[in-house]
């Protein structure tokens, strides 16, 4: 009824009101989402950035003052942080590379229909649904010689001289979370690449084989070029995501032994969670944020130069 009443009003005014209502509709729909994101993510982000320049310790009631760049000065001399930085590169690089390689192979294996494909697909993708804390615990138990078979198998294969827990071996500890991460993350790459594979028109392969291309040539000249954009974007996003992914390390090793598995993200969490030093944690977080931004920009620039060369 309201609209008919409006319709009786002089043309200029009703047009304005209608336009106003119509213009606001999308904002009404997006408002709840925006309010949530802004209050729970954007505001804390800004507050967190301010913490980086303040002394914020929950256990110290006199803290809270502005201290300028002190945290960053401390950071430059913090050996644990520098080790964490190095570990982050190692953790991220190894995880992404292995997840990608095994994920690509799996996607290629699942690309063509065969009997039982649906079931096989559901089973190999299952790890992705396992909660990360459980993935961490599960693998920690598998590496535990008391309860898990892996140390004994590795010993039998001659890889380990004694059936010890690799998670407590400073030299090998990082492999524990990496293997757990690869187990958990293969499905993500496989699913993404499988979707891209299925989008390649089948006639292309038929045309290529009529033109006399063998399986290897078909893979190199059709599959890879079609997958390349998906591979690039997935690796970029996953790299950022995995470098922030502290759950497995927190659960499996808590950064130990002797900080050998501490990555920057788990270091931030430890600073905030066990030491309750929010100021320092936020300073570390800012460095991580800047590094990720630089990484993303480098990728974008690299992409541009590569595109321009073509």
């Amino acid at each position, binding site marked *: 009824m309201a*609209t*008919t009443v*409006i*319709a009786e009003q002089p*043309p200029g005014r*009703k*047009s304005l009101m*209608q*336009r106003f209502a119509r213009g606001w509709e999308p904002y009404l729909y997006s408002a709840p989402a925006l309010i949530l994101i802004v209050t729970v993510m954007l505001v804390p982000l800004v507050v967190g950035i301010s913490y980086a320049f303040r002394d914020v310790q929950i256990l110290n009631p006199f803290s809270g003052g502005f201290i300028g760049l002190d945290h960053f000065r401390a950071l430059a001399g913090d050996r644990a942080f520098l080790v964490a930085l190095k570990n982050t590169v190692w953790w991220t690089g190894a995880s992404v590379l292995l997840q990608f390689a095994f994920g690509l192979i799996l996607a290629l294996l699942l690309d063509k229909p065969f009997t039982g494909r649906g079931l096989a697909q559901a089973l190999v993708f299952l790890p992705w649904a396992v909660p990360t804390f459980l993935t961490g615990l599960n693998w920690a138990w598998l590496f535990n010689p008391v309860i898990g078979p892996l140390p004994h198998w590795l010993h039998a294969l001659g890889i380990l001289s004694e059936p010890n827990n690799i998670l407590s071996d400073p030299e090998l500890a990082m492999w524990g979370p990496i293997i757990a991460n690869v187990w958990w993350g293969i499905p993500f790459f496989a699913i993404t690449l499988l979707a891209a594979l299925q989008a390649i028109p089948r006639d292309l392969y038929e045309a290529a084989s009529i033109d006399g291309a063998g399986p290897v040539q078909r893979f190199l000249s059709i599959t890879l070029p079609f997958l390349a954009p998906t591979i690039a974007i997935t690796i970029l996003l996953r790299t950022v995501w995995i470098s922030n992914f502290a759950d497995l390390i927190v659960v499996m090793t808590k950064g130990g032994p002797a900080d050998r598995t501490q990555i920057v993200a788990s270091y931030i969490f430890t600073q905030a969670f066990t030491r309750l030093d929010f100021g320092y944690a936020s300073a570390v977080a800012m460095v991580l944020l800047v590094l990720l931004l630089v990484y993303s920009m480098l990728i974008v620039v690299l992409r541009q130069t590569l595109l321009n060369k073509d």
Partner: protein
Amino acid sequence: MASIDIRDIHKSYGKIEVLHGVDLTIRDGEFIVLVGPSGCGKSTLLRMIAGLEEVTGGDILIAEKRVNDLAPKDRDIAMVFQSYALYPHMSVAQNMSYSLRLRKTPRERVASAVSAAASKLGLDPFLERRPKALSGGQRQRVAMGRAIVRQPKAFLFDEPLSNLDARLREQMRAEIKKLHGELGATSIYVTHDQIEAMTLADRIVAMHGGVVQQVGSPLDLYDRPANLFVAGFIGSPGMNFIEARYQPGEGSPAARLADGTLVALPHAYALEPDTPVTLGIRPEHVVIGGEGREAAVELIEPTGFGTILHLALHGLPFKVFTTDRKVLNAGNAATISFPPQHLHLFDQEGARVGAV
């Protein structure tokens, strides 16, 4: 039912204007067909009347009330979509009654309106089915049914038959015409198919490039196309055009073709001597045999009912349609002539030139 007035309607998307000022008055109960090639703005115009597109400039009036700023639901119009847009999760009966239920119509009135529409369209056996379980033609009928249960002020059709195969399309075309005869509702029908336009319309609105080219009865457009676009668009196979120069002569006006020969014209025109003009003649009006000009035969297409001859006249393509089967054995050459009463004359801007 109601009249619809369209006054100087403009539509722009950003900086691109797609409708350049359309004026049109549709009388109560009239069946109007908007016809033109894709991108001519006919669908945009229809969607603006429905309220699905905002009006950039000008006014739309339904039943003498300005509706520019009314939401579609308050315009009391019904629309049949090209895709039918049937609600997949509702049965046929629910699809047809949705609009009435939204208006809180009493249950018995809804039931009687649906069953009346269903029996009119032969949909009674399908009322409880989902659209997915219907054939293309049945879906089309449901879409029609959804429109007629409401008894709206006007019906809008957006290429409603183009998803059907040729035979069904013919059948539905006839049914739509019959239905309009029974209901007498104001209807606006968009199509790119000139046969649909010719057969259905009280008046055709031919559009091109966001501008109305001509409004008139189907035979008007066929007999007296206002310009080269309409002349070429209406009729199949399309009209032949020949470049020529006007020669007033001494009581025997003619057009001089590029090769210097003359084509007799029915009467004199208000043109300067030697003005460049375009001569038009429909393939079905060309006479074959007897005295005339020679043309090479390039291709013969029998259609059963008649034959289309593809000729080369002075090196340019030229089509002739005839029901005389003798042309099937025409060989390499044919003689053709142009009856003066069937000649159309267009000036350099493409507009029809009238008699003095």
